[in-house]
């Protein structure tokens, strides 16, 4: 554990390991997303009440999962950066934020599109929808705060603190449908517990969720590598790397 954390200290080591890992994650992500999309949108059966509009679930649920997971990852990276002063953690947090904001937006937008035919409204100030909107604002806040300082280190620390404090919103999003009366229904897709849908609907959803997570990992690896090069541009190993390439 400590050996691993110590290795993480070196951006050079992270750069080397992510170079090896990233093609695998991209390949698996592409495969899962293609299979999941075709299966979910074409072959999965339609719902007995909602018909085909139910298929929005294959984008809505994975996007919402990722929106919350990325925020938690950002908060964890923030703690690692603040306590152990590991720069790679901060770089990862920096590149994760825009993807998280995009996923939150996709979840909100696909939910609104879904709400029109099923609920009869595209927006309602219920606890689930509102807490998700707050998550979008938290993401935008983290991104803005990072850029608001003239010194990069101050921006990193401010963004980390906001991510760590904002993580309190995540359990609120998750349990809002259980704690209060909401228009949004309770969770359909859970890893534990009984599935609220039959296998032929649940499996493509599982594939989509896994595909979204692989996509998140792959994109974070790739973008962290560019961020490492950008920040370490004056280090000797980067210069050697560039010389080798040219």
């Amino acid at each position, binding site marked *: 554990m400590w050996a691993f954390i110590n290795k993480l200290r070196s951006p050079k080591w992270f750069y080397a390991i992510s170079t090896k890992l990233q093609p695998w994650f991209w390949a698996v992500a592409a495969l899962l997303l293609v299979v999941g999309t075709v299966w979910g949108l074409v072959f999965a059966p339609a*719902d*007995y009440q909602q018909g085909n509009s139910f298929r929005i*679930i294959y984008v809505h649920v994975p996007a919402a999962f990722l929106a919350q997971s990325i925020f938690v990852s950002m908060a964890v990276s923030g703690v690692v950066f*603040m306590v152990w002063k590991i720069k790679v953690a901060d770089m990862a947090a920096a590149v994760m934020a825009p993807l998280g904001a995009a996923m939150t937006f996709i979840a909100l937008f696909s939910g609104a599109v879904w709400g029109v035919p099923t609920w009869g409204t595209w927006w309602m100030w219920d606890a689930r929808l509102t807490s998700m909107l707050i998550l979008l604002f938290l993401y935008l806040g983290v991104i803005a705060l990072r850029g608001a300082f003239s010194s990069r280190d101050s921006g990193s620390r401010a963004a980390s*603190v906001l991510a760590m404090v904002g993580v309190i919103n995540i359990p*609120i999003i998750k349990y809002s449908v259980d704690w209060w009366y909401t228009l949004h*229904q*309770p969770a359909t897709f859970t890893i534990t517990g009984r599935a609220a849908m039959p296998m*032929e609907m649940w499996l493509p959803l599982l594939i989509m969720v896994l595909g979204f997570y692989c996509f998140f990992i792959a994109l974070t690896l790739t973008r962290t590598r560019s961020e490492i090069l950008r920040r370490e541009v004056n280090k000797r190993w980067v210069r050697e790397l560039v010389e080798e390439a040219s």
Partner: protein
Amino acid sequence: MTPKRKQKLFVILGLVSLTAIAVGLTLYALRANINLFFSPVQIAQGDAPMDRQIRAGGMVKEGSVSRDAESLDVEFTVTDYVDDLTVYYSGILPDLFREGQGVVVVGQLQADGRLYADKVLARHDENYMPPEVAQALKEAGYSPADFQAKAAKVGKRLEEEGVPQASEY
């Protein structure tokens, strides 16, 4: 872990727990307002204000929907399996509106105990299934058991507390 790092970790943990407590207390204080709708139990207890725009939610009682043949007027009962609420509405209902389905109605509670709705929203439960499965379940005597259990739990809790929830503030 060096003492300095340990100290930093504790500061972070302290900061996060303080914020969590603050947010938790705020949500606790606002809990009645965060609920999107009143349950028929709460309305029967007199928690919901009269002559003001409120939202009520529950299941459309089986066999309670009566439509006017000449107009869009419709009357139905919303139930949480503890108490019932009669809703009167004139307008187009959402596609998913049907008996045994969850709904949220927006409107005013009148002195006659009925709710005159301006808007009816369908509520969907977390269960999805292909039409064939739904048919099979129906033949086997399917009931919206999840909602029933939750509503009964809430009703029991309210009875035990004996305090009108929404009028505390």
